[in-house]
């Protein structure tokens, strides 16, 4: 006696193959999700308590990065400017602007401004700005065209694979030390030839050492 209808033949085969594909796709989806901006927050502009525009300050006015991020050349942490730094100018310029009230308030009360962190490396990584800046890694290389960001966002995924990409062949990214803080830098010569030269010049360590675990993890 016949238990199943003719159609079940097709259905059963389709579902059999379907299951395999489905699981495969699911896995691929998870991996993609993990690398996606949804996880990394890449290219997501963060709101800030204060409408501070890098595009204006760094881009239009052309203030040097180091004017605010003072410790970038000598410490692991680039440094977030104290309210005092803002007031250096804004006690004169836009001194009465309502936009800047939070700054003045902070300066009056001694209450810090509370910024939302944009570049938040994965935990258990010890990143040091000083060594990168001193070895000719430009701000732009990791932070993107800050001079074109009204609100700051994270230009790179900041995931380990991304770090390794540069640690494995730095010559792709190195630039002359005097160009570290310039935005939109275009090398006169071929990046690779320049990179190889600079790599020698800066005495960068071997790839083995640059990709050693304890270089970043302790």
């Amino acid at each position: 006696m016949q238990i199943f209808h003719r159609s079940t033949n097709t259905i059963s085969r389709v579902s059999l193959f379907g299951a395999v594909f489905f699981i495969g796709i699911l896995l691929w989806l998870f991996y993609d999700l993990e690398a996606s901006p949804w996880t990394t927050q890449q290219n997501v502009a963060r709101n800030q308590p204060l409408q501070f525009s890098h595009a204006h300050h760094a881009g239009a006015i052309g203030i040097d990065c180091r004017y605010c991020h003072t410790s970038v050349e000598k410490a692991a942490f680039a440094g977030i400017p104290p309210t005092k730094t803002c007031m250096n100018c804004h006690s004169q310029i836009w001194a009465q602007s309502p936009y800047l009230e939070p700054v003045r308030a902070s300066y009056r009360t001694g209450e810090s401004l509370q910024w939302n962190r944009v570049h938040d490396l994965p935990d258990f990584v010890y990143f040091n700005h000083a060594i990168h800046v001193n070895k000719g890694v430009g701000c732009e290389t990791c932070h993107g065209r800050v001079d074109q960001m009204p609100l700051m966002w994270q230009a790179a995924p900041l995931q380990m694979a991304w770090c390794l990409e540069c640690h494995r062949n730095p010559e792709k990214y190195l630039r002359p030390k005097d160009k570290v803080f310039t935005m939109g830098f275009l090398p006169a010569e071929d990046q690779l030839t320049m990179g190889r030269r600079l790599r020698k010049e800066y005495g960068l360590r071997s790839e083995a050492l640059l990709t050693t675990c304890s270089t970043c993890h302790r």
Partner: protein
Amino acid sequence: MKKPKPDLVPIPPGQDRRVPVIEPGYTFASVTDKIGQIVLTRRTPVFWFFGFGISFLLMMALLASIGMLLFRGVGIWGVNIPIGWGFAIINFVWWIGIGHAGTLISAILLLLRQEWRTSINRFAEAMTLFAVACAGLFPVLHMGRPWLAYWLLPYPNTMALWPQWRSPLVWDVFAVSTYATVSALFWYVGLIPDFATLRDRARRKGFQIVYGMLSLGWRGSAQHWHRYETAYLLLAGLATPLVISVHTVVSFDFTVAITPGWHSTIFPPYFVAGAIYAGFAMVLTLSIPLRKLYGLEDFITLRHLQNMGKIMLATGLIVGYGYMVEAFMGWYSGSPGELYVTLNRMLGPYAKAYWALILCNIVTPQTLWFRKVRSTPWILFLVAMVVNVGMWLERFVIVVTSLHRDFLPSSWGMYHGTFWDWATFIGTIGLFLSLLFLFLRFLPMISIFEMRTLVPEAEVREEP
């Protein structure tokens, strides 16, 4: 797969000639119905509910202890420095060992054309799967951070990292998962024709559909049988080296390490022998009560029990040889560490466990030399039980006594299982039995279509 011609059937010499692999008077129909009945009957026997209930409670204990483990951390176990591995790995090896009989019976005995395998291979394979399931839990649970177990698998990730291929633990992952997969396939392939039988016997629509789906529409076509047997044979051929390799790889967990008492070349062979040993012990422990409860004495005859007894005796002797070589090497290696570990096993704080295991694994099985013992089910059952315990003790001795006193006396320590250690272990026994009871209830515990080949009717009378 083979047509029994009396003159061709290799009947081993000795008393066994008189004990057939299936009692006379059975026909295609009676065999089919007798086995099919167990599954298709509406009335589930009382003892089933009883047994399943108890096993289920034990399984709950397992879940509880796993929950506790994940909440508090492996600290709830007895492990420490220097004894980084405790019950978890002991149980892992024990279960994996038990999980060897099924595939071995199905594959190797098939290749050796041992027809008596027919009536026991089905539930032996099931037992294998469930044992492997239990075993598979432990390597995951014993990790400090079990939820990261998938880091041992190769897959694309944002850290650009891979497993460390030189670590035997990674080999384990591949070996155990492969073994589980292949055994499962082997088991299922064997079930397909029987599913068809059940589909055709089942009266309730639901069962018809379920078994119908599982049978994939098997219709016993000669074409299909032809390919089917080829595939089955090939699988057997593949599973045979696999089954050997799995416990070899498990033994690598120890031999690759430099710890005295672990770092030894005898481990792979004697681990494999031990696995077969333990596996058959467990098959006996299960089959003896089962044939009684389900009245299958006609199918699982004394011949089966006797043969399994003989195999246990043989493998038991190999294992014994393993122990001797270990002790010998301890002295012969000339390394103080090795010698100390060997002596420490016999005289140290864990001497009791060591001598107990010698008693269980070497002394007790010697009784199997006597036909009386081999042909008395309840004695066989006791012997098998003792061997089960002994094999667990063996793993305990290997894992603990080697670690607790290694190279630097300054960091020697002691190990004792905690409540949670025991709860987890007993819990897995619960898991094992629960699965087994479900299997008995819903799947044919004996391969029906293979049994048909054994009844006299199956004889084709060729006209000369």
